[in-house]
Structures are given as C-alpha cells and as structure tokens.
C-alpha cells in the first residue's frame, strides 16, 4: 500500500487545481505536501471536471488512488468455493481470494479497482474487456480469475509509463479513435497486442498469402480492420481507429 505520507511533487497547474477546488486543504498541502486523501477528495470534487489540455496527469492521479484499491481488495464475507490466486497486474503482485465464479474482469474492476477494463457484454461478443495476458490479447470476461495463478496481466492502466502515454494511446487521441470512450481501453489493448502479432508474421482471414510466413508483416488497412473486428465500437470510430493503428504500425506520422 502507498504510504499515506508520501510526498508528491505537483506541477504548478496541479497546484492551481488543488487551490481552486480545495482551498480548505491548501495550507496543509503547502506544509505537508499532497497526500493520497487529497487526491481522493479531488477526484470526488471534480465530479465531471475536465481540464482542457493534458496539464493534469490522470495517470499520476490514478497511481495515487491505487492505495485505495488495495484497501478495497477484501474478500466478501460470504465467499463460496473460494480460490486463492496470485497474479501480476501491471507489474504489481496481487493476491486475491475469490469466489471460483469470479471472472478476471470482475476481479480487476470490483476488487482491484482497475475499472479501465470495461464490461460491455460479459459474453465474449464485444471485446470491451480485452486485456493482455502473457503478451496475448484475451477477453477478461471469459477468463476465470482462478485460472490466472502466476499470470502476467496488463490492462489499460498499465500502458502508460510514469505518465508518458503509450504510442497507441497518443495515436488514438490524435486520430480521435473514440467518441464515448467505453470500448477504448479494449480497443487499445487489442491494438497494442496486434502490433506484436504483426511483427511475428501471424496471419488473418484476409491475409493473401497463408503459405509461408512474412515477418514482420506489413498490415494493410483491410488487415487492420479484420484483426480489430473483435472490438465493437457503437460510436463508429472504426476509420479513426484504423488511422491510429496504421500510424503506430508504420511508424509514420499522418
């Protein structure tokens, strides 16, 4: 768990935000530095507040609230058929005791407070719950948490490194590869894994030459579309998603 008194450096913009929204805590923050409870309060106060431009680092904010998630990771009183499982999630060891029925999706969301991974259908028919397990994209809604012993799981929260967005995340913003954003974590996890699949020369149903492997494989738009068809987007951001992936895949800015 994050130490309560760990001091965090604030940017001037972040300082401004605390001053503006939490004047009553300003003195304390000035003397003791910002603490986890301040971030938690800020999250509550902000409600829907979105600051234009990315001066406020959501990721840093998220890292701070991770302490709270550990506090919530308590098995419920009436656990049935409990299974103990230890997995690595975004680099961090997580020990869980779950109902045997609990899916990885629900374990991430309800127990580890990693709510970036979304429940769109819970039946493997939409892709919103896509996460990366041991370098492969999979559906967390059809994965029992109990089967994840020793697995290395990466979720949308684990893609940015110390606040620096993954190239795919940045490309999704640049190309407006989403509207409502609900399928986006799944789309991005899927797209990140797709890059490795292309590097390994893996085929798809629309691959022209199945016999003999091309590696790395240069993906046409048609290939990207087929390979991303397991991630539904009701807002219809598909063309922009393809643009974002094309840019990251080709390494060429468009």
């Amino acid at each position, binding site marked *: 768990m994050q130490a309560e008194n760990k001091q965090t450096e604030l940017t001037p913009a972040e300082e*401004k935000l605390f001053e503006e929204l939490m004047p009553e805590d300003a003195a304390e923050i000035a003397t003791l530095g910002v603490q986890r409870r301040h971030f938690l309060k800020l999250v509550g106060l902000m*409600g*829907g*507040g*979105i*600051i*234009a431009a*990315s001066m406020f680092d*959501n*990721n840093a904010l*998220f890292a701070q609230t991770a302490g709270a998630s550990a506090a919530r990771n308590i098995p*419920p*009183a*009436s656990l*049935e058929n409990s299974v103990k499982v230890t997995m690595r999630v975004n680099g961090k060891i997580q020990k869980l005791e779950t*109902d045997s*029925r609990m899916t990885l999706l*629900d374990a991430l969301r*309800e127990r580890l*407070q990693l*709510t*970036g*991974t*979304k*429940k769109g*259908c819970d*039946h493997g*028919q*939409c892709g919103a719950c896509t996460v990366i397990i041991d370098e492969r994209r999979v559906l967390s809604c059809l994965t029992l948490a109990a089967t994840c012993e020793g697995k290395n799981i990466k*979720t*949308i*929260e684990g893609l940015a490194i110390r606040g620096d*967005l993954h190239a795919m*995340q*940045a490309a*999704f*913003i640049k190309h*407006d590869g*989403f*509207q*409502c*954003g*609900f399928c*986006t*974590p799944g789309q*991005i996890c899927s797209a990140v894994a797709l890059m490795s699949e292309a590097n390994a020369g893996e085929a798809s149903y629309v691959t022209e030459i199945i016999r003999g492997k091309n590696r790395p494989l240069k993906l046409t738009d048609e290939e*990207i*579309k*087929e390979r*991303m068809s*397991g*991630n*539904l*987007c*009701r*807002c*219809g*951001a*598909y*063309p922009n998603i393809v643009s974002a992936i094309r840019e990251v895949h080709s390494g060429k800015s468009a």
Partner: protein
Amino acid sequence: MPEPGNPADRIDGRAKVTGAAQYATDYAVKNMVYAAIFKSEIAAGKIIHINTATAERSPGVLTVLTYKNAPKVKETPAVWGGGFLQTTKIDFYGQHIGVVVAETFEQATHAAKLIKVNYEKAEAKVDFKKHEGEAVKAKGTDRADAIRGDAEAAFSTADHKTDAVYHTPIEHHQPMEPHATIAVWESADKLVLYNPAQVVNGMQNAVAGTFSLKPADVRIITPYIGGGFGSKGTTWGNIILAAMAAKAVSRPVKLALTRQQMFNSVGLRQENKQHLRLAASDDGKLTALAHETTTHTAVNSEYIEPCGDCSKLMYSTPNSLITYRVVPMNIIKPSYTRGPGKAPGSFALESAMDELAHQLKMDPIEFRLKNEPDKDPSNGKPWSSRSLVQCLQTGAKRFGWEQRRALPGQVHKDGFRIGYGVGCGTYPVNQRDSSAYVKLTGSGTVVNAIVEMAASDLGTGTYTILAQTASAGLGIPMKNITVKIGDSVLPPAAGSVGSVGAISFSNALNDACVKITNELMAKAGKQFPAGTTAAQIMISENIADFETRSESKAPEEAKKYSSHSFNANFAEVWVNEATGMVKVKRFLAVTAAGKIINQKTASSQIIGGIVWGIGMALTEESVLDPRYGNFVTRSLGDYHIPANLDIGEIETLFIDEDDKLSNTLGIKGIGEVSIVGVAGAIANAVFNATGKRVRSLPITPDKLI
C-alpha cells in the same frame, strides 16, 4: 468569432485512453452490494405467484424485491417502460418483475436465476405483421394527418409514379455501456445516482417524481457516458429498481443490466411499414408525395417515430399526404433512436426518389435538384439556411459521381458488382433552455476559468466544444479552462438529445461569457475598446476572482424561420456476385450544419452516424418470436452491429454556413442528421450495382442471391 483549437483534440481524450475516465459503475463506493434484475417470461397476462424462497436462502442474498414487498412509488410517465414492481400485470416479455440484492455480483446473478414464477397468460400481440391491420390514428397531435393539396387526384393523373412499401425492422441502440447504476441513499430522502444520463435534469426530475422527492434531493452523477444514441435520453425502470434495492438493504447498490436484458429494458426503434407514393411530370417535377407509416407502440403508452418528417420538407411538391397509423402491442415501448423517424423515413423517401428517377431516366441528383424548394413546403416559412444543393453538387464532384452508370448492373470487377448511390437527409434545429456558470480567477497575467452546466457528453465532444466556446468567449487559452458537466448539482441545462446539445450548451455558455465580460466592464466602470476580452479586463483591473451565471433560450426571431441541417450521402458498394455479401467500399457525407465548432469531433460524429446507417442498411435486425414475444436476437452475437471490417473508406465534408437566424452562434447540430439518408444511399447503390431493389432492411446476403 475566433475559432480556438478548431480542430482540437478531445480534452477528455487522455482520461479515455488511460482508463481513468469514470463511467457509472467505475466508482468505488464503500459498503456496496450488487443487484440483479429478473424479468417476465411471458408477453401478456399476470403473475399468479413468485417463489423467492430458494433465492432468499442462496448464500450472500440480502433481499429479493417483487410486487409483494417493493415500496410503493408513483408510476410517472417520465419513467418509460414500466416494471416498477407495483403490479402483477405483465405488458411485455422482459418486463422487470423483481430484483435480487446480494453481497457479490456472482451471488446476485445466480440467485436471480433461482426465482420461480407462475403466470396466467393472456393473449399477447407481438406479431406486427399479424396486427398491423388493426393500426389506428395516432393519439399525439404531432402525428396527425398532414395534408396539402390533393395527392390522390394528382396520382390518378400522373405521367410517372412509384408506389411501394418499404420495411424496416426493430432495431436496438445497444450502446457499448449497458445501462447501469450505483444508487446511494445518503439519508432517508437524499439519493445519489451514478447513472449515465443524456438529459441530466430530465433524469433527476423523473426519479424525484417517482420517489416523491424534491428534485434537489436527487443527484445524478454522469461525467462519462458509454454511448446512448437515445436509449439514455429517457429514464427507464432499471434506475428505479436500483434505488429501491439500495433503500431496502440500506447500503449502496450496483445494478447493471446484462447485455441480454438490454434488448427489452431500454426501448427500441420500432418496426415500420412505410407506404411511399411519388408522382412526377415528364420534366421531372414532383406533383405528389404520399408517405404513410404503419407502426406499433406499447400497450399503454404511445411513442411513434416521425418517419414522414423528411418527406414534409425535403422536396417541393404541390400535393402531399403524411400519415401515421399505430397499433399498441405487447412489446416494450419504442423510444428515440438515432435519427428518430428520419433515419427509416429517409430510407423510404430516398429509395422512392431513386426509383422514380430511374423510371424518368434522369440522374437521381438532377431529379433532386429539380425539386429543390425555395421555402419550407410544410409551413411556408423561409429557410434560415438550406445548402442541400451545395451538398449534392460538392459531393458529386468529390465522389466522382460522373463515373456512375445510369443503367444498373453494368460494372463488374473481381467477382463483385459495383454501384453508386445517393441519399439525402435533414434534421431540425432547436435550441433549448440552458443555464451556465462561469468563474474566473486571475493571478498576475494568468486567468483561469471554470465553466459549469448540467450538460452531458456521451462521446459527442461536449467537453471539448465547451472549452473552445469558453476560450473564444473569454479570451482564455483552452488549457486554462476547466469544464464541469454531467452532474445535476450544476446549473440546469438541456440534454444531449435530438441534436439540441451543442446548440443549447454552446449558446448558453457563450451568453454567459458575454454576460461576464459586460459585468466586468461595468465593475471596472470605464470604457474598453471593442473586442476587449474578459481575460484582458481581469488582468488590467487586477481582479482576483469574478463569477456569473446566466440563463439562455432560443431567440424569438428564430421562430420565423424554418431551420434544419441537411446532408447528401454518396455510397459505393461492392456486392459479391457469389455470396451476396455487400461491402460499402467508399462513403462520402457532405453536411451543411451551420457553424462547426470542432471539425475533428464533428467529423467523427458524422462518421459514427454513417456507421449506424451502414448497420441499418446491411446488418441490424431484431427478431421477435411471434409465439412468445421474446427477442431471438438477444445478444451482440445475434444482433449484428457493424464490426471494423464492415466499414470501408469514409470521407466527411462540411459546407460552410453562416446562419445567425437560427441561433446566436449559428450552430445547427450534427448527431442526428449524420444517419439520415445513409441507408437510402446504400440501398440505391445496391440497386445500381445489381438491378435489385431491396425495400426491406437489412440487405443481408440472402436478399441478393
């Protein structure tokens, strides 16, 4: 007006790509438990007995609510679809009949399957084809027969005419985020609901009315909405059950509908049978138009989407007949679905226009241009602006329309037949009452702003366009602006429905920016040069903080004009000659929608409408089993919303319009119009490719072999 950041990246983009954006069920609420709804498995009749004993004994279960023990609430028409556990009566298959609350999600969902119900079945009307003959005139006056001239007489003497029935099936919104709630009673009469809402204050009032609370005691928190498309524009019974459940166990409750439950919980686009007749003279002038829609509604409540709306004003004709007939059926109440009425209506109208152009041996664009009305034919009002001609001409050039062969079935390549089609669309412009709050804080040469209103962003880009509007209106860089929306404690605002969002929100915020600038000038008590911004006054007068709140409504003058967005859609389809599978290879939408605040998010929204239109044209169909009244297509594996590979190359263009007659900022709205005309363009392209006229959507492979 300056255009800061046009096009701008979404200011909520970072939150959305990192997973930090919090949707309703993402909130960590202490002591929370889980609820699961169970639903009726008959379409009409009543419950004789519900046995909840096994469920109640199931581990972790805290309570089971049914009609027997649910608290009494007021069934207000503001909450749609019924199912508040107040009665044993069943009106449609899938009506909510109870809710289980348990310690965990696994326990609640399992226990909900242990409920045993005995019913007394009544005869149910679920087969539209069987009951369409019973349809009668609509109760609502806005769906009354609209008659101009004498269409029947004109048909009887016409040189050329078409007479056909177009059919569109039940379709479902299916936003990626299922409807879901976390309900928290902060005290006996103070309720907080984390719940996606397109209309924040509308939901607040609906819930307050149901529980006999003061609206101020119901708080709706909805900063992020995982899509809505109309389904989250009205309030449905699930939110009421969440609040009831939370009350019953005195703990916060999370209640999410399952994807399967979404099919009969939160409305649908109704099945429409549209009888379309057109008549024209030899020279291609329309002489009559009749658009007669037959559809269904709920047994006890009427909603009819306005399929005939486009036909009222799209083309000039001296004789026009628009009617609606409706039959109440045991199906959940239909509701607003993207491009309500206009999307299916334009499929019928634009198909018929294509059919008549073909009969006249006239290019379908030329045919449309010949029938361009100089004022609104339905009410005689002048247009505030209408750029349909420019949409068609610009689009034809850009798309390479001249390559289209007039005769269908002429172009073959690699086992495909290729065709081009055009279809037009329109949607009305409305500004609704909204209020906004602006707070400025100055420090040295930096001025920051917080802007607030109970608006919503369901992917439409509200956050971003409000930051842009405030930036322009206050003279403050976007990065110094904080936008707070999606919470009912903020100043009341219109909703993101019917394309009123951007118009209402941006104008209200702009008005607030003008007001605060004027008030700052008054406070300073001196003259400033024209164009002086609020930020400049804050700095020059060294003001530390200043705030204002304003309320806005549509300008009175606007009523004198007919104000609508218009578009022209161009489709190139490739039909696989062997399999009948249709691919929309290329699509161009040219949209005239007044001021486009953000070219980037606007283009995305238009693309979204096109993808919806492609789904409507090719893949989407909800099928009821007429014996039971249940949906057979009850999952995303059976109900096919388009996947990435279904979508070809899409281009969007905007026609510049400076329309200050409709509202101060000249915004006309794009979310709805973006789907209108799309299915028609695709169906027309399929005809051009194959010579087959498909009048029943969706155009699945079986219809083309």
